[in-house]
């Protein structure tokens, strides 16, 4: 029994020492610097090396084709190696994620670990310092032969320090007087603000990705409706789309007139432009892209409408060097038909198979096997697979990005807190001054001062300014004949 207890005790001791070791490692600034350098290096790779488009990263086949394309065009034999190292997706790679997570842990532990020193700085440490403290420091000075008693000298120093914005705490020990003064002590908390806001930022970023949604390809043809989904109950109707150009051909404006519906009720009419998204209940619609649409009517053999409306031709593809657009009409209600693919030539493209003014109608069954493929001329009808297709005209579609990020406000708050915390730490540095006054004769005293400033700030300049001020005050005293010895 005793040996089992000892074993448990040893086990706990080992765990404790491992945890302590980990805590020590993660509370080191050196590790922070190393981790920041790792994140920097990986980010540099991400900036310089071509990255796989986000939309194919979840599709292994598309990603593999993309790597083959990169290999053929640019990288040669290096592409598979870089791909295996996940460097084409560096910001989603385990290396980057692990480095970021470790850095966040490091920031958290480093910040927590500094609490005691910050708390003691805010409370104020020991007032009384040994005389050697004043004689051995780098930023120390003294004024000798002051024709005042040490209590008066200390009071004068206290007054000057308070006048310079210091909190001065005084302590006497018989005829010896000690002052510990500090300035900007609460601004030390800025380091907490900036580091915790970084953690908040990363958490909000992750929460936004997890809880929100983003549709990067949300195409709506003119006159058509489209449901947003994601349990929002919203749908968007595109009333019209306009693209304008300058005389030199550069784009001037893209704008979509839309009506937003919640259920069946129109809740907002708006114009969506680049830089002017539509926002409703946290859901944002951004103007993103645009393209052609076709107006098509389909009737069954009895002359009944199966479909009538505008179809977005938002799928661009290239075959034998000819670019074409594809739009899809889902006809699930029909027994034998799965979908109808509409194929049009690209604008200004020379297409021998689908000439300008025609549209290809490709009818597929439920298994996506082709039933028939015919061309229909603009403004005319044609019967294909027992249905009458009428190509009524050309139109446009507008493409939006639709997103909902419930944590975006937190991200902006975290950014503001980070900047605020940084300003507090960098522009209101914590400064400390210690003063010691002791008698050096019957009616004379000596004054010792030491100053400490954060790295990058010269303590001497602050010390000299305080000493100059003290000496100036002393010279106005008739009985005073001060002598400085730095």
């Amino acid at each position, binding site marked *: 029994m005793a040996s089992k207890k000892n074993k448990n005790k040893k086990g706990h001791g080992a765990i404790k020492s491992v945890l302590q070791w980990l805590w020590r490692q993660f509370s080191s600034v050196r590790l*922070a610097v190393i981790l920041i350098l790792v994140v920097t290096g990986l980010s540099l790779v991400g900036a310089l090396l071509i990255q796989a488009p986000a939309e194919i990263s979840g599709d292994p086949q598309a990603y593999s084709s993309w790597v083959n394309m990169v290999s053929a065009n640019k990288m040669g034999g290096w592409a598979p190696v870089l791909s295996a190292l996940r460097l084409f997706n560096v910001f989603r790679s385990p290396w980057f994620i692990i480095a970021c997570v470790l850095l966040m842990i490091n920031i958290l532990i480093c910040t927590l670990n500094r609490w005691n020193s910050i708390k003691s700085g805010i409370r104020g440490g020991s007032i009384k310092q040994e005389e050697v403290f004043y004689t051995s420091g780098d930023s120390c000075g003294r004024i000798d032969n002051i024709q005042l008693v040490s209590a008066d000298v200390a009071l004068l120093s206290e007054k000057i320090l308070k006048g310079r914005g210091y909190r001065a705490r005084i302590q006497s020990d018989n005829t010896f007087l000690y002052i510990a003064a500090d300035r900007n002590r609460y601004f030390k908390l800025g380091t907490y603000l900036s580091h915790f806001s970084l953690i908040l930022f990363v958490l909000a970023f992750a929460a936004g990705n997890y809880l929100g949604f983003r549709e990067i390809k949300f195409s709506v043809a003119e006159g058509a409706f489209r449901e947003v989904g994601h349990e929002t109950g919203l749908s968007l109707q595109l009333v019209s789309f306009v693209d304008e150009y300058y005389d030199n051909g550069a784009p001037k404006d893209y704008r979509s007139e839309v009506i937003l519906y919640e259920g069946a009720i129109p809740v907002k009419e708006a114009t969506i432009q680049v830089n002017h998204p539509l926002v409703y209940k946290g859901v944002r619609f951004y103007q993103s892209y645009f393209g052609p649409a076709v107006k098509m009517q389909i009737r069954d053999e009895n002359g009944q409408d199966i479909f009538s409306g505008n179809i977005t031709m938002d799928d661009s593809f290239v075959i034998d060097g000819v670019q074409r657009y594809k739009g899809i009409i889902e006809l699930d209600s029909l027994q034998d038909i799965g979908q109808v693919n509409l194929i049009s030539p690209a604008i200004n493209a020379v297409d021998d198979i689908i000439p300008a003014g025609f549209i290809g109608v490709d009818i597929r069954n439920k298994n996506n096997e082709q039933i028939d493929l015919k061309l229909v001329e603009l403004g005319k009808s044609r019967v294909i697979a027992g249905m009458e297709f009428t190509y009524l005209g050309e139109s446009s579609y507008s493409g939006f990005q639709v997103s909902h990020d419930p944590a975006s406000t937190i991200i902006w708050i975290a950014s503001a807190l980070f900047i605020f915390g940084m300003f507090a730490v*960098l522009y209101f540095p914590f400064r400390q001054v210690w003063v010691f006054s002791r008698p050096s004769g019957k009616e004379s005293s000596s004054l010792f001062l030491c100053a400490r400033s954060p790295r990058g700030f010269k303590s001497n300049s602050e010390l000299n300014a305080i000493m100059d001020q003290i000496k100036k005050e002393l010279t106005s005293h008739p009985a005073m004949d001060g002598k400085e010895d730095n």
Partner: protein
Amino acid sequence: MSGLESIFLTASLACVILVLLVAVFSSVISRKNSRAVIDKDKGGRSATGTPSGVLSVSSKILTILSLVLVTLTLVFRIIQTGHGPFSNMYEFALAYVWGIIAMVIIFEWRYKTASVRNVGLIVALLLLIFAVVKHSTPQPLVPALQQSTLLSVHVASAVFAYGVFTISFGAAVLFLIQNRRSLSWLPDKETLDIISYRSVIIGFPLLTLTIVLGAIWADIAWGKFWSWDPKETSSLVTWLIYAVYMHARLMRGWKDIKAAIILVAGFGAILLTFFGNYIFTGLHAYN
């Protein structure tokens, strides 16, 4: 109007060249004086390396004149375009030059060091040459850039940040030279270290603000505040390098040379971000 802009641009270039020529001349005299002092009193050294007398005053006046000329070039450009200098590399290079010259004037006034100013002005000169080469007639703004106020503040913040980081680069380069050669006509290492640090604590919050403002604009224009666009990422790399510098100063053995090397790397990252348009493809692809 375009004619006046070109005249002021050329005059700015000439003026910066003149400041640097005066600096070279004054440096030669300063070195001679320094040698004379050393001969007279071994161990004597110039405290700040600032050229004295007429040459010092001339170089200061010419530096201020350079700022006035670059300001006028920018003003005439802004009057023509109707927006801030953010639509192409010429405009941003000009704004960056303005930021450098403004900062060298402030730092020279504060620290009385002509040497750091001269390094800054060499960078400004190279950028001015680039601007002259890239000078182009104004083009209308594409829809994404039609967010004048936010973009102007974003670019203004970047201009000040890059300008002040150029100072830290100058001080770091001189620190590394001083560390090897210990030249009497250059500022001492402590002063250079202080200049480096002070410039970074001005530049780092400004760079943070630039990135945050850019993210806000991206959120409005593109629907995503961060897209890992190469130029965005490159600015993050710059930010991280300066973050390393800020933390490295707290570590034993990372002060002095290593800190100066980090600052040189930081400036390299700034150049990569600035000229990245010619390397990267992405949302910031403009010339």
